[in-house]
């Protein structure tokens, strides 16, 4: 066993300096940016025909792009100027399949990726990033209840296993969640945060409520991945041939009718992505820990 202690020391510290500086790995991306000025079709078709180009919207398998909605509700003159071209890609639904970029060369020039993580898990980009956290941002007084340590209880409510793999990766030497005082706990009674992944199936919903009842206040619920947020690629698949809508509505935690009361009372934080990058999950956990979200 002594040899492993030696080997471990010899291996050295491989962790990132993440919260102190954004030293992400080469292929990391957090959120999509959409620059309407660069989307040529967007501008040209609007000015010529009065109708926006819908190629990317048609290609999107999850309905994350909604050019039409924003067009109908707004004045087209604003669009031509790119002034209101903010709500185009909804990152709460996007699964990063890249079909929109493949489909249309113009959106490909407009879309780019940010590797910046903001404090409140959003970024400065011109995408639909209004991640509505039920928690209010603390303006004056920080909520420092979890300042020293944060305990997380993970629940899988119907994910593909990739989210679990990403959450488990937080314990590896690269991310090393422990150094920041964040721990996975086996019991909900010691938990400060419930980390929920998956489409929130009916069978798991009862178990989730049980876990929630056993988790002491103050508590946060973090929804990891697009599955619990909007259902992702599974959304709208419940009521199809052979499947009973009441039993299998893969619409996610937020859209589930059962959760009406919970959504009003609980503090919910969203971490989109399919699967969400460990950095994103870590960032959300750090935000909770440092008290950026007030109860």
């Amino acid at each position, binding site marked *: 066993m002594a040899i492993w202690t030696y080997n471990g020391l010899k291996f050295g510290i491989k962790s990132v300096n993440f919260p102190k500086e954004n030293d992400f790995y080469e292929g990391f991306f957090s959120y999509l940016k959409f620059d309407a000025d660069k989307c040529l079709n967007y501008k040209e078709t609007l000015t010529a025909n009065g109708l926006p180009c819908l190629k990317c919207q048609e290609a999107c398998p999850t309905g994350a792009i909604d050019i039409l909605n924003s067009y109908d509700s707004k004045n087209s003159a604003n669009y031509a100027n790119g002034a209101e071209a903010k709500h185009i890609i909804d990152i709460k639904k996007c699964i990063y399949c890249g079909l929109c970029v493949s489909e249309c060369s113009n959106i490909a020039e407009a879309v780019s990726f940010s590797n910046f993580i903001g404090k409140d898990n959003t970024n400065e980009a011109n995408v639909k990033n209004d991640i509505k956290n039920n928690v209010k941002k603390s303006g004056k007084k920080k909520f420092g209840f979890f300042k020293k340590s944060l305990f997380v209880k993970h629940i899988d409510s*119907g994910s*593909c296993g990739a989210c679990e793999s990403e959450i488990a*990766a937080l314990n*590896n030497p690269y991310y090393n969640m422990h150094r920041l005082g964040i721990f996975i706990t*086996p019991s909900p009674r010691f938990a400060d945060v419930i980390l929920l992944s998956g489409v929130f199936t009916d069978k798991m919903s009862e178990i989730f409520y049980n876990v929630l009842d056993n988790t002491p206040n103050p508590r946060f619920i973090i929804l990891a991945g697009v599955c619990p947020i909007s259902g992702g690629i599974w959304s709208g698949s419940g009521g199809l041939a052979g499947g009973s809508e009441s039993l299998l509505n893969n619409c996610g935690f937020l859209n589930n009718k059962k959760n009406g009361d919970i959504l009003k009372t609980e503090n919910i934080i969203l971490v989109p992505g399919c699967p969400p990058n460990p950095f994103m999950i870590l960032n959300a956990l750090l935000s909770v820990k440092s008290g950026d979200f007030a109860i």
Partner: protein
Amino acid sequence: MFKKFLGDYEFIWGPVKKGVCESSYYHFLTSSEELHELDITLGYKTRNAMNAAKGKRNLYEQILIMERIAGTHAFAASLSYCLAAEDYFGLTGKLPDCVKLIRMFFAELERLRNHIENLSEISGSTYLEVPSSLYAYYAEKIKQISSEIVFSRYLMGINTVGGVRLYNLSGREFIMNNSNKNNAFTDDKAADFKRFEYIATEVGSYIKDIEKIIKQNSETKSHIDRLKTTGKINAEIAEKLHAEGVVAKSAGINRDLRLKHPYLLYKVLALKPVLYNDGDALSRYLVRIGEIRQSFDIIKICFEKLTKNMSKQHIDDIHEQGKNIGDTGKLQHDMRSIYNYGSSGSGNNSRSDNFSGSNNDDGNSDEHTGVERNLFLSGVPHNKYGFGSVESSEGPIFCITGGFDGKIFKKINIKYPFENNFRVFKHFTKNTMMMDFNINETSYNFSVAACDK
């Protein structure tokens, strides 16, 4: 209900368990140390994947569903679906070698990553935290390379019916730079292959370090002793229960599809099976180590064949092919076109018109559409079924497709090896030590999501 004797007690574990794991329900009957009975209940996270796939609009969206049934086996699952679809359309023999090599390259990369992750879990289960962390670090590194090169940490979105999305391979840099599209593609056509070189060399350096960990791990007595004779399975019964993948190989049953029913170019490689006869956790551990080495060899061979043996013309061909299939998401257009054609009942010429029409819509030139047209000429709906089988890291994945309605497959099913392996696990866990349960379960490396599809 279990039959209980004096001193026996039963308890349940799950669906929500310790740590980070998938939801499954275990029901134990035990008397202190010995585990007498085990009942496993799955189905807590059934997402009705097959119905979800039937509700999609085109074949690529069905691939997205297939990838997300079990995320850690995303590439193998999408490959099995693509092979089934290609079998249905009669494209199996028409695919160029480059596409096959690229698919093999990533299939082996996924196998390698899954095995390294499992070695980390096995080391963790024997309370050797240092090697567990080291393995996990290198598995993370492989995911980071995947993210860097193919835009997904879990190798999602590479396969399409009739090819690979080369756009996905080269799209990332283009997006990051936000540069001109034409420069990224046409100026350096061999650039795609440089990416494979990068992956091969990086993975090679990790493998060197991993070999050192494996060597030191095999010298650690506490580690080997815990694995030896733990979760031993009998070859005859395992064969009757249809054990698959690593579990079967550890008991000396050769059921590797790459050898028995070669797909892609595995026939050319002349692989030797990695077999052990003991059937215990150590054998499964050794099979994984053997497969890591084998997979890395295949990755090297694929890379060499891709770069050295392929002429410039081949590279151009595959580039054009990838461009056609992946570049503008033409697959969608193709399916729409076939659908239009099928409903209108017109001939081949009209379909060609359809293709060219869609190209004009995209503002692209028509010059590179020949391959695509040829590929989908045979995509006429018929009553037969397409079948695809792929050896994933844990065993074979079978996919069957049929009932093509011009857009999607209405009849579709996929089978993972885990259902069989759960049966084997349940049978051979009886009368073992409770203390060894974690090691035993980890060495099988189950994916609950694959069973609860």
